């Protein structure tokens, strides 16, 4: 009897996981907008590679890597993610060094290598919320950016313009003093 119920649980889990449509929809909900660690593989490949060992979180000196439980679907269980508004990636690249499976690829901690390989997402400015676009000089996102003038540039009144080189670390989103935040990372996974 116990065995049967155990298999039932497995079966229900399988059914939930195979029908991945609700999972995709859940990933697009604003409250579940997440980033994968820097230089993670493309989402589907990432899930296939990640063995949920938790070493990336253990290596992260900033403690920004958290782990899904069941909220993002069964396939994402115990995989690492970053919520940039809470704590953003400081691009130390230690998680890629420690990842045994290549789900997070190793990248040397140099600006060029990071710009070339890391694409966690892309920052977007909501001009209706941004203080600088409302006539109040701010520029906090620009000051927070680890790649200033390369990933983000400011114009008149410190109005931010995100450039192509933005790697999506999320430090600008975390630093934004507006509530709701005027700059946000659009994750590069689906």
């Amino acid at each position, binding site marked *: 009897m*116990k*065995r049967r119920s*155990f*298999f039932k649980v*497995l079966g229900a*889990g*399988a059914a939930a*996981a*195979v029908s991945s449509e609700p999972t995709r929809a859940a990933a697009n909900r604003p409250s579940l907008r997440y980033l994968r660690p820097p230089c993670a593989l493309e989402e*589907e*490949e990432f*899930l*296939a*590679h*990640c*063995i*949920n*060992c*938790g*070493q990336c*979180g*253990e*290596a*992260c*000196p*900033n*403690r920004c890597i*958290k*782990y899904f*439980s*069941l909220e993002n679907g*069964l*396939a*994402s*269980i*115990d*995989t690492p993610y970053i919520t940039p508004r809470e704590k953003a990636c400081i691009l130390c690249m*230690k998680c890629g060094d*420690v990842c*045994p*499976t*290549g789900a997070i690829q190793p990248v040397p901690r140099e600006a060029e290598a990071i710009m070339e390989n890391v694409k966690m997402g892309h920052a977007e400015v909501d001009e209706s919320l941004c203080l600088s676009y409302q006539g109040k000089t701010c520029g906090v996102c620009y000051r927070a950016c680890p790649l200033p003038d390369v990933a983000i540039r400011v114009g008149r009144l410190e109005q931010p313009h995100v450039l192509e080189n933005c790697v999506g670390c999320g430090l600008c989103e975390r630093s934004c003093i507006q509530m709701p935040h005027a700059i946000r990372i659009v994750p590069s996974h689906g």
Partner: protein
Amino acid sequence: MKPFFLWRHLNKLRWVSLSVVFAMLVLLPYIHVYQTYVAAHAYDLLAPSEQRVFDVMETLTQPFTNDPAEDLDAIKGNTWSGTFWGLKLSDPLAALGQMAAGLTLYWPFLLTALIPIGLSVVFGRFFCGWICPATFIYELNSNLASWLRWAGLKVGNRRLDKRIKYGVLAIGIVLSAATGSVLVAAIYPPAIIGRELYYMIGIGGFGAGAMFFLGTLLFDLLVARRGFCRYLCPGGALYSLLGRYRLFRIRRIVETCNDCAKCNAVCEFDLDPLRDGFGQECNNCTACIAVCPTDALTFAVRITDYPAQGPGHLGRRYRGEHEDVAGHEEAA
């Protein structure tokens, strides 16, 4: 023939090994937390409880490091997959699960499972008895069950089919392939323990695996003694398969065995040492060697079990049969 005297004490050594592994799994998240405190250069801003963690970890690690934020990166991870001074080791089940999930061979990772696979081929299912952090808790749980039974409570002692776990392994692999995610990790207790201890200490709170593990503890307590390891564990199944032709196995010395059956009673995996029935499931835990009153169990280097040797020569049955034989000879 007397077994080598050390074999009797291996069971104690095994408990030391289990405790050390478990202690490391508790210590490593604290080391990580300590490293983040060091990296933030903000001792004054820590809460008193955090300062206590900082102080303890500083005392513990100071003799071994100059720069905690960097040097302590040497050891990371858990028994599912870990890094030891650059050497990466992974559970064979992780390698198998990843192969299934991606339907590809990613060699840099598969190679990290090579040393564990080699050790399992030689020592069989030793991981289950000597290293697995879940075994540490399951055996304590099993002891708790015997105390409860002693106190007059009913605990589960059902016997199921040991082959179920090979089915669980197959289902886990098929599920991993179907979902494209390494789902065996979610139903494999040592992986769960490593992760959940890190969640608890390093992040705060538990994941879904904690509930699953609690369920297996109740299953062991209420349905079958050590039931998860015996009947359901997918990793145990894989290790059993790898250790089918292991080199080091326990064998009974029939000349000194007195058929007391203490070995069968103590065996956590419900094997049959009394009748030479070890098979691929034996994890070389040596509990039977430690409990044997006549030193009739020892290690042998063989790739198959000894065929059944019949009743022990010091036992009542064997002596009875042979007195008869002696009587017949006298009569003739």
